[in-house]
């Protein structure tokens, strides 16, 4: 530890005291429970009974369960649609707002409005307009001959609606990160490229994009991890039905624990979600670690 400038005691004791509340909270609410989940995944655990060690039985049951694999596949599809849908939309909006635009503040405020809406309201809003046969968007789609989104009966349509909901609620996050990154692109650089005869696309591709790439990758990483947790949208639309066809990982976990009281199986699911999240975040975490070590 670097020599503290103001007395030996306060040099070490002060930061420790200042960090204790936050670190204790993280330890008690997140870290220890997460480790305990790992241990629980090797137990037969149900609510109100002593857990019994059963080795890899939960993991075998999980990997043999076709519903789990379907949930994993559904999650994968939804995450793919949500993350790249959001990226395309967020990037387009960021580029649009970074350029010439009257009443820019107002436009940006209106674009981030969905960030304030809770998931239940969001589901209510979209269900209302897409209610089969009677919702106004369903009606309009039928009139146009496109056919409606049959989300209450068709599993694919239900997951598509969950993805639309995810994109609608979270695009503000991706948009704002990219918009803030675009503010940092030096205007002289773009100007110089333009003077050299580069077209708009070429300037974007060779000057702007490389500059915002780090922020873009961080946004994609964060959204991949958070989109993987999708629960409310699916739960409130279909509860995973019909016949567990639309379950995602978090719904599978919830159902195992709080409907079937199989905490062992739920813990195995939970641990796989944690491991997957950490793997996806690994490059980001590694970069963060290097940066911190460099500052020590």
């Amino acid at each position, binding site marked *: *530890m670097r020599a503290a400038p103001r007395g030996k005691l306060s040099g070490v004791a002060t930061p420790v005291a*200042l960090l204790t509340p936050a670190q204790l909270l993280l330890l008690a609410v997140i870290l220890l429970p997460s480790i305990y989940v790992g241990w629980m995944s090797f137990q037969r655990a149900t609510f109100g009974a002593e857990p019994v060690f059963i080795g890899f039985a939960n993991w075998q049951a999980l990997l043999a369960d076709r519903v789990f694999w379907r949930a994993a596949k559904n999650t994968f599809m939804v995450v793919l649609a949500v993350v790249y849908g959001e990226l395309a939309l967020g990037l387009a909006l960021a580029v649009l707002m970074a350029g010439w635009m009257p009443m820019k503040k107002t436009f940006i405020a*209106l674009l981030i409005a969905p960030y304030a809406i809770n998931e239940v309201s969001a589901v209510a809003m979209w269900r209302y307009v897409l209610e089969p046969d009677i919702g*106004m968007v369903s009606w309009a789609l039928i009139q146009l001959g496109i056919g409606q989104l049959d989300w209450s009966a068709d599993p694919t349509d239900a997951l598509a609606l969950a993805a639309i909901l995810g994109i609608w609620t979270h695009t503000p996050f991706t948009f704002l990160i990219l918009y803030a990154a675009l503010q940092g692109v030096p205007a002289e650089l773009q100007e110089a490229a333009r003077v050299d005869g580069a077209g708009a696309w070429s300037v974007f591709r060779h000057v702007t994009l490389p500059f915002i790439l780090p922020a873009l990758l961080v946004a994609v990483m964060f959204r991949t*991890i958070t989109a993987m947790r999708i629960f409310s949208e699916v739960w409130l639309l279909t509860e995973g039905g019909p016949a567990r066809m639309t379950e995602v990982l978090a719904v599978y976990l919830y159902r195992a624990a709080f409907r079937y009281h199989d905490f062992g199986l739920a813990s195995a699911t*939970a641990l796989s979600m*944690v491991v997957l999240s950490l793997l996806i975040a690994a490059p980001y975490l590694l970069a963060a670690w290097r940066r911190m070590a460099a500052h020590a």
Partner: protein
Amino acid sequence: MPRPRAFGRVWRLSAAMIAVAWSVFPIVLVVLSSFRPQRDIFRIPPSLIFSPSLDNYARLFRDWPAFLPDMLNSVIVTAGATLMTVGFATIAGYAYARHAGRWLNLSAFFMVVVRMIPPIVVTLPLFPLVSFLRLNDTHIVLVLLYSAFFVSLATWIMRAFIAAVPRELEEAARVDGAHLGHIFRHVIVPLVANGMLAAGLFVAVYAWNEFVFALVFTTRNARTAPLVMSEMLSTTDGVDWGVLFAAATIQLAPVLACVLAAQRYVIAGLTAGAVKG
């Protein structure tokens, strides 16, 4: 950015209008429909002109007497979580901004790592524990959970803001004999109030809107507004859309106003907390 030619201006404005329609249309529709008479809610084509009525709101308070107490629970939990998170994050952010060392780095890295853990994971061990402690359906459980999942982002935001405060200001106060509590109150806090607002906004929006923890840990006494709204949405005898829209309007009005008014804090917080990780 040079002002584009007429065609470019029209093109850009139309694109922005379409984007705004996509993001605002569902919200406007729900707020407007909450004042629509019940029989007009599914009228097609939707009538733009209707005589507004408060009938849906009257039915909300009559059929769902728990709604107002549940809103109060949301207020309590949001206030508690916001105060706890911003308080913890400000002092922790100070430690990271002003001190360095291997253990400090390690604990900072730990704070980044825990952000990757999906919140639903901790419900599994905490549910039996909370029942054992007889804390089921209490505000404190939600306050602790919401704080824990946002204290690290908030700490990052506060670290960035505090690092921007010149050390000389503190040193001057220290020379005058002020101790840390005094320096916090009179030097740091006034200068990083914007950061505290940004950090507080993120926690408050999360706590106000959160669904999964509320679903697992509350049933009646500490049930929050989103949860009672989910019950309105999943009734077996048909959704009363007017009532649900009235509830949604009341729930979203304060948070939407805050987010719209504080947009620059949202941007500042996101850049400090996520990108500069």
